[in-house]
């Protein structure tokens, strides 16, 4: 019955049931529990920060500044999850986890942090809220799974709320990138032009547009994968433990 430790990453495709891996040892499990508890706490801090700022300001505009630091800290901390996969204490794919974490880190640092003018946009609140709710549920899901005591409510929440949170987050992200475009073009942020001695050029503005376009094939795939996972996991009840 022993279930291997669940992945601490929201990977779209599964890498479970690897015959060679026996799952993490006791030390690794203890570490992962601590990691997931800390992350759950971190995102709760962000959630509380948002609520408190909203109550004191009386409006939902410009709440980014109240949670900027913990958001950067905990979202960047998720890079450790790539390491967890690489080392093997988590059975998910390094590439997939890397891709997902890097896309979050990209939005946090290379868009929201770098283009000051978008920090006031409501779209930022949209994805921050989506991320916050998602991560609180996801990290508590992993914590409970590692301790072999997963309340059905958490499992349900993880595999149901994404139906709304995923599109919400994607909308917030896309609108934020879109809002950043004119400033990037005007200032030539992160761009390199010819001539130069390494014969290289990079147009960050075009790059951002390509990133936006990439959502078109990627988002439906990830979304429908989660849908399929939902059917499998919730249909067979508590006995079925498929890591994601």
């Amino acid at each position, binding site marked *: 019955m022993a279930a291997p430790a669940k992945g601490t990453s929201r990977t779209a495709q599964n890498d479970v049931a690897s015959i060679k891996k026996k799952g993490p040892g006791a030390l690794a499990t203890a570490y992962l529990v601590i990691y997931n508890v800390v992350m759950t706490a971190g995102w709760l801090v962000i959630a509380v920060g948002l609520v408190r700022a909203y109550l004191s300001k009386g409006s939902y505009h410009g709440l980014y500044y109240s949670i900027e630091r913990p958001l950067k800290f905990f979202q960047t901390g998720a890079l450790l999850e790539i390491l967890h996969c690489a080392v093997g204490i988590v059975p998910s794919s390094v590439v997939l986890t890397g891709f997902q974490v890097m896309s979050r880190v990209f939005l946090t640092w290379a868009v929201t942090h770098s283009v000051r003018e978008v920090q006031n946009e409501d779209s930022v609140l949209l994805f921050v809220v989506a991320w916050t709710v998602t991560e609180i549920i996801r990290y508590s899901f992993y914590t409970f799974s590692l301790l072999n005591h997963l309340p059905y409510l958490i499992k349900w929440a993880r595999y149901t709320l994404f139906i709304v949170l995923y599109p919400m987050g994607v909308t917030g992200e896309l609108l934020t990138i879109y809002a950043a475009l004119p400033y990037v073009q005007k200032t030539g942020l992160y761009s390199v032009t*010819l*001539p*130069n*001695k*390494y*014969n*290289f*050029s990079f147009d960050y503005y075009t790059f951002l547009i390509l990133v936006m376009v990439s959502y078109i094939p990627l988002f439906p795939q990830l979304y429908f994968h989660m849908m399929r996972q939902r059917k499998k996991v919730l249909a067979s009840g508590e006995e079925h433990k498929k890591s994601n």
Partner: protein
Amino acid sequence: MKHYEVEILCAKTKDKLCFLDKVDPNSTIGEIKAMFHKSHPQWYPARQSIRLDAKGKSLKDEDILQNLPVGTTATLYFRDLGAQISWVTVFLTEYGGPLLLYLMFYFRVPFIYNTKYDFTTSKHWVVHLACMCHSFHYVKRLLETLFVHRFSHGTMPLRNIFKNCTYYWGFSAWMAYYINHPLYTPPAYGEQQVQLALIIFLFCQIGNFSIHIALRNLRPPGSKARKIPYPTKNPFTWLFLLVSCPNYTYEVGSWVGFTLMTQCLPVAFFTLVGFIQMMIWAKGKHRSYLKEFRDYPRLRSPILPFML
């Protein structure tokens, strides 16, 4: 002589797909594939994977029925490998693209650079040299595909051609764009840098070709025999003393030369990515040599002497 009966089931669904009776015990899997193809014409032999076990390894075409651990009524499992394409076709397409694309940038065909540069040529002679080297490299590859290489497998999955062509065509267009750009900056150390780079490039091209010839000579025509490669009289093959896959070593060397020649960051990226891929292949090949041959020389590393 007792005839065998062979039933072929689908590996996934376990459905009975085909029943062959009066099968000669000396039949090979290849012949059975041909028979299966008759009843299911959409599954030509190259896309059939026949196994003893639904989740097991594919049997080889050369395997003989009566030598397999089966009774006189053999149950075999079939998996569809998907549409297949010949290796030769893939190689010709994936190498032909870079050859032509690079030339389009070199001749500054319209719609790439500013209209005022259409059909002009670069004033830097290193740009002409680079075009000659790049073109030579891919012509060499095309000719080797047609006349030198002996392929173990006839085909690969169709989706590989899209993946491979994207890689080769994409990278060569990216590199060619900068090298042939009107605002291209020639190497910082001028003539000396380009000359050194050219020597490295040519040395490694000859080296790579020598290895290809040596590997070809290991295997008589039509054979799929596997032997340990050894150095020959050609000094370029002496690298076999230190490395399992000197063809990859020389290939990386060629691109290092080309990077130095053009002093172009995209070329450096291409070299790096190619090196990583070839290192993975070399490690795999090295491991399978070690597994297959007891007396495999211990001094050899996969791709870089003493290092990797």
